[in-house]
């Protein structure tokens, strides 16, 4: 989780990623962020987020993103 927070902080500083649950709904992450984020996560966690998992509900909070990473890691 720390590693993920670090990746997110690299995208945009000054946002409380631990508690924010509206990263998508409030437009905190834009489409370029999503592309960068996915590339960074794939590299850092050695996973491959498939296009069909790129859904609003999977990216609205750090918790949701982390759950997605864990799910992919267990496959």
């Amino acid at each position, binding site marked *: 989780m720390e590693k993920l927070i670090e990746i997110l902080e*690299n*995208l*945009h*500083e*000054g*946002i409380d990623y631990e508690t924010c649950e509206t990263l*998508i709904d409030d*437009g905190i*992450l*834009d*489409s*370029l962020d*999503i*592309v*960068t984020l*996915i*590339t960074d996560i794939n590299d850092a966690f050695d996973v491959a987020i*498939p*296009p*069909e998992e*790129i*859904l*609003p509900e999977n*990216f609205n909070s750090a918790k949701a993103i982390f759950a997605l990473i864990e799910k992919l890691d267990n496959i």
Partner: protein
Amino acid sequence: MRTNILQYLEETAARVPEKVSFSDGKDSVTFAELYRGARSIGSFLAEKNCRRRAVAVLMDKHPHAIVTFMGIIYSGAYYVALDAQMPSLRMQMIIDTIDPAFIITDEKHRKTADALGREVLIYSDIVNHTENAPLLDKIRTHQIDTDPIYVVFTSGSTGVPKGVAACHRSVIDYTESLCEAIGFDENTVFGNQTPLYFDAPLKEIMPTLKFGATAYLIPKQLFMFPVKLCEYLNEHGVNTICWVVSALTMISSLGVLEKTPPKHLTTVCFGSEVFPKKQYELWRNALPEARFFNLYGPTEATGMSCYWPATRTLGENEPIPVGKPFRNTDIFLITDDGKEAPDGEVGEIYIRGTCVTLGYISNPEKTAEAFVQNPLNDKYPELVYRTGDLGRFNSYGELEFVSRKDSQIKHMGHRIELGEIEAAASTCEGVRQVCAVYPAEKKKIVLYYVGEATSAELTAYLLKLVPRYMIPGEYRNLETMPLTANCKINRKFLLDEASQS
């Protein structure tokens, strides 16, 4: 002879009244509904005498916004679409600049509109107003093709956004030449990406009105979720898109072209930024039958000024050209000593033609800087637009974009003056000096600053002043700013540093 863009709507509404004109996938309006709604709103506004006034529109990307735009033009006023997400201080700045007769909004944005201190109208209250045909006719007889129809705001380097005003004649000229170059017709199904508060959606709005085509106004959020986005395009049979490069690369770089190819697409126009070659090739390979066009042009010349049909294979290190000017548009390059650049050499891009807009609203100083007498003509008055872009003509006679002369950047398809970010950040408490740079390869705005403020404080502060897309992606706190020999902030040094680390 067409002298008013409403003629497109009137001709088409008479020909295919029941066809869907604009839709967001859920709500649609037919050409007849668009015509009737626009005339009702136009009558309401005309009875309040809005001629030659601005009318602001604060609505989401929805077919009703298009009805409202057309209604405003019927009344002899011009529309100014506002970004509902923009910070309230910036919105207020725009409202103060345009001094609108009314703000038209919907229930959802009513509170935001009310806070702007102007008379507010609700769309649903005026769209069924009784048509006043004699009054609309009277307005039409006084309308000429140099009357403005909209004002679009772009980033301004001093911190105040600049509003570009365009007239009927420029938009008609643009519509005709664009349609001829790209080849739209009544079977075109557009998938619009760009927000309605820019000039970019004219590419979909105007050909739709001219031919009786259909345009889908794609909800913004879909652009973060590429599979859903492609499913949407396929569901609605979208065959033509004119998107910013970042929207296209989002689809190609995440592997969506293989998984859910947008199978109906036959025409793909891109622009506003340099298309990374690799992503461009992914698109070409995924849609071998489709026609691709690179488009280039500033808001000040109405929309796009140049196009390059991708019909030849590019050399390995050859940039994608921006191509040749549209019919009735002329482009020339001027060197630093004020002469026309010889073939193959770099010069500032100047644009000449009916497409050159009226200038910046309520801003004669900025207008005089950019809308200038043709430097190659000292015989009679002739205004041309100097873009601030540097370009060169290649051996095919095609224009290539080289770079900007100043600190204007393109980020996510948005045109941004780094000076506007600096002007905003420098008013933040605990900030003494600032310099914003944009290392292009990182696609990230980096703000260097001197002062005690934290990055969190700066973000929170900037969110109140500038749109979301202008918020720096990174902050770097410095003890002192590096200076050049003549004591200016060493921008080049900071840019190099930001690019490297």
